């Protein structure tokens, strides 16, 4: 072990209570940032989950659509125009909207209907754990997620109820299709979705465009825009970005999560800076001696930064363990906290940066030592 590391570690561990305070500060800070950023990632994924699972090269959306859940509608005839564009192999209409689900035991609850043609590649439920996707083509068939059984008053497949006073029968059950709005998603066929929502049969929410592999997507998009009025044509990536921007920035939800994360970083930095500063103050005679015997400023910086890095590594390890437990505990909740390798790496770098930044005050203090203190008793 190098002498710098030895000196740093012994300075750090000499006062165990202060060391524990430092580590607790780091752990508190990083766990807070982990939760906030994990929620942010989770939210970011959930707001685009329908776009991620739709089969489309391009989305025709009503002009000014802000997100997938936007209630604006298109003229269903736009589909015919879309199909006439060279390079378009299919155009699948999708209808979405909020409506009411009659709970079999009494009362109603809001649901979010997603309707798509069952015979083509469109936007269908995934992770089907009971029943079959094909069953959605039978009259009144709907698919729900088992997470929402209690909310919807459903206990088994085949159970019947009403949606907006029209018959509905649960014919497929999925697992893990959760809504960040907490309103359950209910999948069905296009025509029934229009009926359940109360929309005219010649109105749809989106048209999912499939483009021939030989065709240039940008050219197809330009042709679609030239042929259709009051619509926008977006790639899935553009629609995702727009949805995220709306939910995360437009609603202030993202700003709130980032503010929480920033607060965590500030609290952590202040705690680490305070404990490093007081540790350095306790060792001023030693740092003065180091300088008196000729050590360079860089050598002393290394000792202090090494102390900060040791705190960072130990604090991060504990925070990561707690973070993993939180991820595990929240995995089955409405808004699970997500940890990715990139987020973990980012949090580690943030911890290091936070601790090194915290060392600045201690370094400034040491560089201002009156060296003649070494001659005092």
């Amino acid at each position: 072990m190098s002498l710098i590391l030895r000196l740093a570690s012994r300075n750090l561990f000499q006062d165990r209570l202060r060391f524990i305070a430092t580590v607790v500060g780091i752990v508190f800070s990083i766990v807070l940032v982990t939760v906030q950023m994990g929620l942010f990632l989770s939210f970011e994924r959930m707001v685009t989950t329908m776009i991620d699972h739709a089969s489309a090269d391009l989305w025709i959306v009503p002009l000014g659509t802000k997100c997938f859940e936007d209630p604006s509608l298109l003229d269903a005839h736009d589909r015919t125009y879309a199909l006439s564009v060279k390079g378009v192999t299919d155009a699948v209409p999708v209808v979405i909207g909020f409506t009411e689900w009659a709970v079999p035991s009494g009362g109603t609850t809001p649901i979010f209907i997603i309707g798509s043609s069952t015979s083509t590649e469109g936007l269908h439920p995934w992770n089907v754990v009971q029943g079959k996707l094909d069953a959605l083509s039978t009259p009144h068939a709907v698919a729900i997620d088992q997470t929402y059984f209690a909310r919807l008053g459903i206990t088994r497949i085949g159970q019947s109820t009403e949606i907006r006073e029209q018959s509905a029968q649960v014919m497929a059950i999925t697992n893990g299709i959760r809504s960040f709005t907490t309103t359950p998603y209910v999948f069905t066929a296009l025509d029934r979705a229009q009926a359940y929502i109360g929309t005219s049969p010649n109105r749809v929410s989106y048209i999912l465009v499939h483009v021939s592999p030989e065709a240039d997507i940008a050219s197809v998009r330009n042709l679609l825009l030239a042929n259709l009025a009051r619509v926008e044509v977006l790639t899935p990536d553009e629609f995702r970005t727009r949805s995220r921007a709306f939910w995360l920035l437009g609603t202030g939800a993202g700003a709130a999560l980032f503010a929480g994360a920033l607060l965590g970083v500030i609290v952590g930095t202040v705690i680490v800076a305070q404990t490093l500063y007081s540790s350095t103050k306790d060792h001023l005679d030693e740092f003065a001696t180091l300088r008196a015997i000729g050590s360079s400023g860089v050598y002393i910086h290394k000792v202090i930064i090494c102390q900060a890095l040791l705190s960072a590594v130990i604090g991060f390890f504990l925070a990561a363990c707690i973070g993993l437990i939180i991820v595990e505990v929240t995995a089955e909740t409405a808004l699970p906290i997500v940890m990715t390798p990139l987020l973990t790496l980012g949090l580690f770098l943030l911890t290091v940066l936070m601790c090194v930044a915290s060392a600045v005050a201690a370094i400034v203090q040491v560089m201002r030592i009156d060296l003649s203190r070494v001659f005092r008793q």
Partner: protein
Amino acid sequence: MTEPVIEATDVVKFLGHGAGRVEALRGVSLSLGCGQLTLLMGPSGSGKTTLLSVLGCILTPTQGTVLVRGRSTADARSGDLAKLRRDHIGFVFQSYHLFPTLTAMDNVRLALDVRGVRSGTAIAKAKEVLVTVGLSHKENAFPRELSGGEQQRVAIARAIVGDASVILADEPTGALDSENGHAIMTILSNIAKDPSRGVLVVTHDPRIVPFADRIIHIEDGRILDEVAVGAAMN
């Protein structure tokens, strides 16, 4: 005396600011060479420690010049002063100033580590100087496990391990009993017999006068006289 390692000429040093400003040194000139042990004696407040700080490149003079191996300390930046200390000067302090969390061996190695000397070479050199000061059997002991005399010997080992040209010792026997003080002065006078090294000891302990080759008296920031050892003994 050989070519001086440190040479001070007309050094004036003010300490403090405003109404509290004090002229601690008032035109001091002296030179320190190799192969001799010089005592700097004087009453409290006479300017001994300030002079030691100026000669040891811890303070720069307000006026006058200090040359260390021909290099002036005037206008030197703190990094340049640190390099002069690293290359030419070893310190021994009255309070030892050992690192309590490091062993005797590591305390000595630290002086090499700051000079960029590491691993096997550093360990060999540190062992060698611990033998010189008679502490080879205590190399793994922490300062709290050593007596005052032993701690001072570790401090001397730390001062000489980097091959400093001059050892500046501030009251090295001040915290020791006469037996340990005698042992420490014996080590320092042996170091001073090395023709490549000089030793300056600041003291007001008359018991160590017999170890001196030269004695300088300072009072009120001025050198009163400078006597060779024979004259002092008389």
